[in-house]
């Protein structure tokens, strides 16, 4: 009898935990340190203070800011859950037509850099955009939509995150036991009644867990509150805090204090999240028995559902893409107009294609994103399995790997920089540091995918292997890994796509010779080269879509379903 095998069950959480701790804790320690440190111009610590926390809590209008943050986060969470959830349900559990359109919209919008999305939306709904333009052309007075408002913020953020909801809830709905719904139907319940009284309550733990996740993410969101909220003077916690970082010298103390407070709040939320996730287990599982979910027949409602999918496709994908194409084809920004048709030009695309560095940047980006996605999924596979199986230390692993969800990007970037400057390895100044920062930043997402995936595997599948003589590692390799493959692949792709969108960290940590495409996006954006930015973004989105579709196709061929589990 091998001693290693005996200990695998105990050693595995330990090793995984150590790795996670090594990744997550040093930046956290830096944050905590920074939140209490009084520093001089050189950033050297000269003493200890509670000033940053006091400043955070006593800032003028802190109540309003807090309220705005809550409204913004709650609103965008509800919107993304409603949109993403409804679509996921239609795609996974009904016979609605054109379901592929929803998946397509999701993939492509996931591959589009955030800044571009927001820019496109601001253009579409802005004062000279087609929405208000048509309104005024139809004789409407003033503006139909004031996009730079709380409503606009919620709208844009909600649509930004609905793909995540779509993907994760899709997995839940797919694993739902159709028997329970059919039992309701045969008891005389209508389709809406069945959804309301059976499907929804069954999926509720999963939905709530996801809602909490999206909510936490929205609290830490920065791009949309800044670009959409600041012009209309609507401040949320993140935008307030970040003003302190833009002053010279940058004041990291308050941002660190904010991050520390957020980590504390989120630790509490995560506690509940863990319990919700655990409850989600009761309701769905891929058992060792034959399992084939059967879709709802929507009857005449099919076409209404199809119309909804098409509407989503138009709103989430088609309109922003048209806006981007329009912007990319103009030499300077202008609203949709006949006059604009005469000035169409490919010069922006030419500029992008001819720029000498974009190819290198793109290559580096793909390399780092793929590396981060692989490392995260590998680590998350162990951590997620241990956590989902409630093994000793599972809760700790879950918390550890979800910690970074609220580190604001730039704060995390600074913390990672501080840590790895002190590591006597060639990490700082190379692509490695961006890779490590990405791993830390996106670990929570990988964890979610694996966790949800494992919950759907009936425990007895693993127990059967154990009884058959397989040790822990063999079970992971021969049983869990193959069964988790769809969740792993989906998680990998998700991280790959969002890692390629990350701006703040990439710009901060990039160094000569170690640059990624995000730096170019940042350059173009800051420089106001909207046309070239749109052109670059479109080509980038195309590349991401090709990668995603290849994955999709490959895994379909393998007989598994990639999107979710």
């Amino acid at each position, binding site marked *: 009898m091998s001693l290693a095998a005996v200990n695998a069950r105990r050693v595995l959480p330990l090793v995984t935990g150590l790795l996670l701790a090594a990744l997550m804790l040093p930046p956290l320690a830096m944050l905590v340190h920074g939140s209490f440190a009084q520093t001089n111009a050189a950033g050297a610590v000269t003493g200890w203070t509670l000033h940053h926390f006091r400043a955070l809590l006593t800032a003028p209008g802190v109540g309003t800011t807090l309220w705005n943050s809550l409204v913004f986060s709650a609103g965008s969470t509800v919107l993304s859950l409603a949109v993403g959830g409804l679509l996921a349900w239609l795609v996974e559990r009904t016979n609605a037509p054109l379901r592929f359109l929803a998946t397509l919209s999701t993939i492509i919008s996931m591959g589009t850099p955030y800044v571009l999305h927001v820019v496109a939306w601001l253009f579409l709904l802005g004062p000279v955009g087609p929405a208000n333009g048509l309104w005024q052309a139809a004789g409407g007075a003033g503006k139909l939509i004031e996009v730079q408002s709380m409503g606009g913020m919620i709208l844009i953020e909600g649509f930004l995150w609905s793909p995540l909801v779509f993907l994760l809830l899709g997995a839940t709905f797919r694993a739902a036991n159709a028997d329970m719904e059919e039992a309701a139907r045969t008891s005389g319940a209508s389709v809406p009644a069945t959804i309301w009284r059976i499907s929804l309550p069954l999926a509720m733990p999963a939905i709530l867990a996801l809602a909490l996740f999206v909510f936490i993410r929205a609290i830490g969101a920065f791009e949309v509150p800044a670009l959409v909220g600041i012009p209309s003077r609507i401040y949320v916690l993140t935008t307030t805090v970040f003003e302190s970082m833009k002053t010279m010298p940058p004041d990291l103390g308050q941002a660190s204090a904010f991050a520390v407070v957020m980590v504390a709040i989120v630790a509490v939320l995560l506690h509940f999240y863990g319990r919700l996730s655990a409850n989600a287990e009761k309701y769905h599982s891929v058992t060792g028995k034959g399992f084939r979910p059967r879709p709802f027949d929507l009857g005449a409602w099919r076409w209404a559902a199809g119309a909804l999918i098409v509407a989503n496709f138009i709103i989430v994908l088609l309109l922003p893409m048209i806006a981007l194409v329009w912007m990319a084809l103009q030499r300077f920004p202008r609203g949709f107009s006949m006059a604009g048709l005469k000035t169409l030009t490919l010069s922006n695309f030419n500029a992008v294609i001819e720029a000498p560095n974009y190819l290198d940047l793109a290559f580096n980006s793909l390399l780092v994103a793929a590396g981060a996605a692989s490392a995260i999924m590998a680590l998350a596979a162990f951590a997620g399995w241990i956590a989902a199986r409630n093994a000793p230390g599972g809760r700790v692993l879950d918390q550890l790997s979800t910690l970074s969800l609220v580190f604001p990007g730039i704060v995390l970037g600074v913390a990672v920089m501080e840590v790895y400057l002190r590591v006597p390895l060639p990490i700082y100044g190379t692509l490695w540091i961006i890779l490590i920062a990405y791993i830390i930043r996106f670990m929570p997402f990988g964890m979610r995918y694996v966790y949800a995936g494992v919950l759907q595997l009936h425990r007895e599948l693993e127990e059967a292997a154990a009884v058959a003589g397989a040790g822990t590692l063999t079970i992971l390799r021969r049983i869990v890994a193959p*069964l988790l493959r769809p969740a792993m692949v989906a998680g990998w792709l998700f991280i790959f796509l969002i890692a390629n969108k990350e701006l703040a960290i990439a710009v901060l940590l990039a160094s000569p010779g170690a640059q990624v495409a995000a730096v170019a996006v940042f350059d173009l954006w800051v420089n106001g080269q909207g046309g070239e930015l749109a052109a670059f973004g479109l080509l980038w989105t195309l590349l991401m879509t090709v990668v995603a579709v290849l994955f999709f196709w490959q895994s379909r061929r393998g007989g598994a379903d990639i999107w979710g589990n």
Partner: protein
Amino acid sequence: MLTVERLTRIFANRYDTVAGGVREADFALAQGQFFTLLGPSGCGKTTTLRCIAGLEKPDAGRIVLAGRPLFDGAAGLLVPVHQRGIGMVFQSYAIWPHMTVFENVAFPLRVGRRMAREEIARQVDRALATVGLGAYGPRPATRLSGGQQQRVALARAIVHEPKLLLLDEPLSNLDAALREEMRIELRRLQREIGITTVYVTHDQSEALAMSDLIAVMDRGRIVQLDAPRAIYFTPASAFVARFIGAANLLAGVAAAAVAAGTLGAVRLDGGAVIQALFPAAAPAGTRLSVAVRPESITLGTPDGTANRLDGTLADVSFLGATLRCDVAVGAEMLRVATTADVAPAPGAAVRLAFAPQAAIALRAEG
């Protein structure tokens, strides 16, 4: 072959004080025995099984398989599940959906030991043939009916010739006809291979039909450990009597002190006095439940030594081989199974008779 001593595994329960698990279970099985853990859900039977398998870590006790200690709480010994060399069939079958039938069955031969490819193929084919799935090897495991999956799970559990076979309610997911068929099949296979088997079920007819030895469990404890006939005819407690079959239980008190294993008088709550067999000694006035099986009672044919009760026929159901009569005796409703040729009409006054040896006086519950 398998010895389980004072096995204890208690689950802490946050919400109420009645914790699940198993307490101080003791039993010993001989080679080739078919042993059933029987009881209602939550009685601890599955926990016991999972402790034997190694899927659950007992709090205390000792488990020894074929002379090899698998668990010894006092010595701090715990053999991990994958090194116990046992076979197990799960309630859900746990057929791995990403493998073919062949690969599923071959799995135990491939992990943790070196075996030639041909040898594996030979053993898998033999196991599949044993369960009647000879030609199914290349099939994807997801393309099987429930019964076929069950057979695959069984083949997988026996392919590596384990010393012990554990079955966790394997028939509960099958339809009635298939269940009947598989029950016979399973018993035949078990006899053929001669493998010591621990079987978990809540279905008393399965237990009675298949087992050499039955342990009836209630709230974590083994309340009776006996052969099926003994369990059926001489239940050790009112709980066993009720659980094992649809026994009539008549409430009463001991009219006088009675020694163990002798007949004694019981005054029923309705006033009648009957003679019953006392498995355990009881002082006068002890609250009793007298178990009488429906098939031990006859209608209207009194004989000299029999107990008699008068009642009214409330309902008659035709069950083919027998008639089921529900007879109201005072406040109690008694069930009587009688042969089909006697067919009184509901509402008729009837006299019930049963032998004193067929009436088991058990200490009342609670």
